[in-house]
């Protein structure tokens, strides 16, 4: 299925309803992405006000989550969607939960960023956090892009990157344990960094979830809890 198909219903109000709920999801995604960028930026460039800005976005994100939920319930109740329409509504309902959680994790990162800003910075200026942060922001960005265009190839790329994130997370984890053992005074900072990278790793998981829903939406195949190699095979196989 493609995005054009959305607007081919005999009922034009149905078209409008689906189009509206889909663009709300994209708007919500855009806000969450911005929250995340600001939060991570707050760690690499010290900024004590980052928390306030991210929290402001959060209000709007929550509002959107509720209104999308409501729209989906109404569509389910009044239209009885089937096939790709049904998959779209299910995908949206699940996607916004993950988006909302990405926002929550972003808020946690921002809170820690505000705390770290008041403290002395390490020599590497949190380079490892910035690197992992960039990967994760890209993942979220591409996930939203894939969702906007129903692009399963891009979704698959995001799924592949989740492995990198997990490896990077492990590496930072080990590195921080070393820091803590070398110099107990660094424990406080190292723990904060651990919290941040833990959040980033979770965000990667949420982006991965959304990409899996998207593959279900487009191809009708449930690829959750499936090895990436098998998903690749599924994507190449004809619809079955």
């Amino acid at each position, binding site marked *: *299925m493609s995005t054009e*198909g959305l607007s*081919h*219903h*005999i*009922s034009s109000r*149905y078209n409008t309803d689906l189009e509206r709920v889909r663009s709300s999801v994209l708007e919500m995604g855009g806000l969450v992405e911005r929250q995340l960028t600001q939060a991570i930026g707050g760690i690499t460039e010290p900024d004590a006000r980052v928390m306030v800005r991210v929290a402001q976005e959060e209000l709007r994100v929550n509002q959107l989550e509720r209104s999308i939920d409501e729209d989906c319930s109404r569509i389910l109740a009044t239209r*009885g*969607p*089937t*096939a*790709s*329409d*049904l*998959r779209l509504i299910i995908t949206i309902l699940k996607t916004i939960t993950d988006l909302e959680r990405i926002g929550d994790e972003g808020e946690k990162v921002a809170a820690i960023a505000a705390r770290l800003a008041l403290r002395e910075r390490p020599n590497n200026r949190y380079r490892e956090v910035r690197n992992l942060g960039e990967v994760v922001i890209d993942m979220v960005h591409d996930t939203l892009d894939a969702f906007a265009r129903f692009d399963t190839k891009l979704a698959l790329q995001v799924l592949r990157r989740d492995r990198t994130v997990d490896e990077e997370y492990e590496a930072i984890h080990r590195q921080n344990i070393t820091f803590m053992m070398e110099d107990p005074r660094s424990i406080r900072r190292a723990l904060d960094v651990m919290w941040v990278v833990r959040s980033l790793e979770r965000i990667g998981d949420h982006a991965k979830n959304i990409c899996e829903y998207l593959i279900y939406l487009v191809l*009708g195949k449930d690829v959750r809890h499936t090895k990436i190699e098998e998903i690749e095979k599924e994507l190449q196989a004809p*619809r079955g």
Partner: protein
Amino acid sequence: MEQLVRSKPPEVESPGFLPASDIDTGVIPIRTSGRGMLQVAVDETRRTAALKAPVKARVEALDFFYGELKALKNITMDIREKQVTALIGPSGCGKTTFLRCFNRMHDLTPGTRYEGSITLLPEEINLVARNIDPIEVRMRIGMVFQKPNPFPKSIFENVAYGLRIRGVRSQIRIQEEVEKALREAALWDEVKDRLATSALSLSGGQQQRLCIARALATSPEMLLFDEPTSALDPIATARIEELIAALREQVTVLIVTHNMQQAARVSDYTAFIYLGELIEFDETSRIFTNPGQKATEDYITGRYG
């Protein structure tokens, strides 16, 4: 000999402790490395049960003509036993024409012609063959119409009618069969105290259930429903749908409906027919979540193709 078998189950080769009946019901004994036996129950979900259901009627290369007009084109599909198969498609696509082939309702329309076959199993009778008596077909395959059409007779006589036609004379037997059919049609409790009153005094939903009871009285193997609830309110509709679900235990059901949700709710299999052709035939759950054909998708989601 038979008694001997019943009293003493036959010896099963390896697992002496397992009664033979367990093996029949799908418990497979597996030998593990010298540590005795391990029982694995075979998972029998509704889905696989449906897939394994035997074929009740086999439609092969069926064409149907109203004079020059070819209304059905080369339809081939299997109707599975004791399953509900729904026929969906836009008005004029041929789904009712197809349904009516199953009990030879076209015979009285001049200029109509069947080609191909509908084979009823296990006897392998071709329902649409000229030498097959349509009355006999209708005894075995009942039909319920869009509008309830009870005879202007008493409730009792409506149900007894088919039995009398069949030549059943015994009053006791007729009474038993009428009660049974009315119970099966979930109508007995509502009419048992007024069996002698006119069927026309019943409500629309009750009349429709009476028609179902009338069709059930001759113990048919298959029931055809042509939009059975389109003239009924939601409550009566829900009753009929419940009934169809219960009937699945004993008869094979074929139903034409314009209500997509109804097809999704009551059927195990769905066939999408368009312009006289069978476009897609699959399990209902699949048709309504992930159909294979774009035309099916467009139709069930309310899109123009």
